[in-house]
């Protein structure tokens, strides 16, 4: 395995490589403390923000946070592991319905419901991950799309989800500080996962599946793992969504939702956490900012996707190493020029 780690890490910005951090920063208790401090800071800032910001803007921020959690999951599946998914909204739907049923019918605590929603979605992620054993590329994409459509039709016809009428009576349990802290935790978890041995193995699956297999990476295992973790994030995000809107219906999680989530990941820059966050912020805010154009806004939205892809095909942050850019801006250390690759052109 160690050979794999070395060969792959060359393409990973911010993995082992020349950069040196002070040794004490790499101790896990220090990192855990820093992370806790960050969460507290985020909580304090958003709690304060919650007081001054108008309700409408607060709502947009809330949805941005939820979307970040969901798209980070998709980024792991599609951006990092390279398995094109056109059905991410299905995991969100599963998490949303599971969490809602947990709190409304089973009277479980909200936190437990969120966790269960994520876990149920992850279970389905594993179930859907199995076809990836045999399918690749566009065949996988259409299978995920089909899966999402089937989930939508099943949700429309089951009694427990209240069918096409939609599931209502969910309590609003979500506020901005909670979502902000979870979103930050999601970013941290993703950063940690991507720079771990598992993350490097997933990246190697994307770069060259045959080479990865030849180097002893169990590609099937890592593909399913990516689907499970990605689905978990979407499930948690779905639970948050259900407890924000207090009402969910099967059409909330249709094909267009999956497409929207994929656009966020690709627009920001595939496989990049910062890119995914940026793409999500831009595409969550864009329809709201364009609201003054009323009927024309989706027209502009569609045209923007085309134009952006023509001028920045790798995404907004595609090919930009954010850590490097920040470091250069702060004049810290020496700059490295590692390109974040989007499939294929790794070295």
């Amino acid at each position: 395995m160690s050979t794999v780690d070395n060969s792959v890490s060359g393409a990973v910005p911010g993995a082992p490589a020349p950069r040196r951090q002070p040794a004490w920063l790499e101790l896990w208790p220090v990192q855990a403390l820093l992370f806790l401090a960050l969460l507290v800071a985020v909580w304090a800032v958003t709690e304060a923000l919650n007081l001054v910001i108008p309700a409408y803007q607060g709502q947009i921020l809330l949805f941005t946070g939820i979307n970040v959690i969901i798209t980070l999951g998709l980024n792991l599946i599609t951006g990092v592991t390279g398995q094109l998914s056109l059905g991410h909204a299905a995991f969100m739907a599963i998490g949303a319905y599971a969490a809602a049923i947990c709190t409304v019918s089973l009277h479980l605590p909200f936190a437990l419901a969120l966790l269960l929603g994520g876990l149920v979605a992850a279970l389905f992620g594993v179930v859907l991950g199995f076809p990836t054993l045999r399918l690749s590329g566009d065949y996988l994409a259409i299978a995920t799309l089909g899966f999402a459509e089937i989930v939508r039709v099943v949700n429309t016809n089951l009694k427990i989800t209240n069918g096409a009428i939609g599931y209502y009576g969910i309590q609003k349990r979500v506020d901005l500080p909670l979502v902000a802290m979870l979103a930050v935790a999601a970013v941290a978890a993703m950063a940690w996962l991507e720079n771990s041995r598992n993350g490097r193995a997933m990246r190697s699956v994307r770069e060259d599946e045959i080479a990865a297999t030849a180097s002893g990476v169990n590609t099937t295992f890592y593909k399913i793992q990516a689907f499970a973790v990605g689905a978990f994030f979407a499930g948690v995000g779905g639970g948050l969504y259900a407890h924000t809107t207090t009402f969910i219906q099967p059409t909330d999680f249709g094909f267009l939702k999956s497409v929207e989530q994929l656009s966020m990941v690709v627009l920001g820059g595939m496989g990049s956490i910062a890119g995914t966050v940026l793409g999500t912020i831009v595409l969550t805010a864009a329809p709201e900012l364009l609201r003054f154009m009323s009927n024309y806004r989706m027209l502009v939205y569609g045209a923007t996707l085309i134009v952006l892809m023509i001028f920045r095909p790798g995404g907004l942050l595609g090919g930009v190493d954010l850590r490097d850019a920040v470091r250069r801006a702060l004049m810290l250390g020496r700059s490295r020029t590692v390109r974040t690759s989007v499939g294929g052109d790794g070295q």
Partner: protein
Amino acid sequence: MAQFLQQMVNGLALGSIYALIALGYTMVYGIIALINFAYGEIYMFGAFTGLFLVLTWKANLYLAIFGAMAFTTVLGLVVERVAYRPLRRSRNAGRLSALISAIGASIFLSTLMVLLHGPATTGFPTLFQNRNFVLGGASISLYQILIIGVSALLMVGLDLFVRYTKTGRAMRALSQDADAAALMGVNTDLMIAITFAIGSALAGAAGVLAGIYFNAVQPYMGLMAGLKAFAAAVLGGIGSIPGAVVGGLLIGLAEIMGVAAKLSDWKDAFAFAILILVLLVKPSGLLGRSIIKKV
């Protein structure tokens, strides 16, 4: 038995429409490995063009179909030129960028139609008196004969075109090896444009036929039809022209059989359930070539 035969006829008619759209997906995919997500919208535009021609110019059936095909051909060329070709030229544009661009085009076109027409569903005016013929216990309507007939005609025409013309041969060469074809003097950009044009024309014809058959035209009709046709193309083995026809007919038949079995609430799931089951058994689709990846 008569009941079964009847459902076969209905399924065949529906399947022909799916097959026509699926042909466009499969041809474009076969040549540049791009899922043209704007296809459903081109089909939708075809239906609206037909409707417009009939309503304002009192066009007859043939004129409506030809007019729609002509318009969608142009539309397909424009979409290719604006949304796909620049990405093909760009060195670091991956396949996913093209996919997102296609999705952008799809959103743009459906919103455009909402702005032009409004989101409401419009019925298709009666072009000719529908009649039923009884054939061995099953009744087949004139509409169904029309749909199956026109689809069959277009498919046979396409097959002959791809097999026996110089352009068709160039297209096949391109799908086998784009670089080698370019070296042999095939104008790849032109061939890709022609492929888009042909596929779009077929989608336009399918749009008018569907508008007449279902007596309903609306701006979002392209989404579900497009997804199912894409499923049909993959089911038959994407890139394979006979595969698209087989896949389309199968999905049409499966849907009608499902409805006949009183499962119409689950109708939209059938196409995809069948697709996933087939892919699990035969990952490259029914008639697709399996690609062995070599290092």
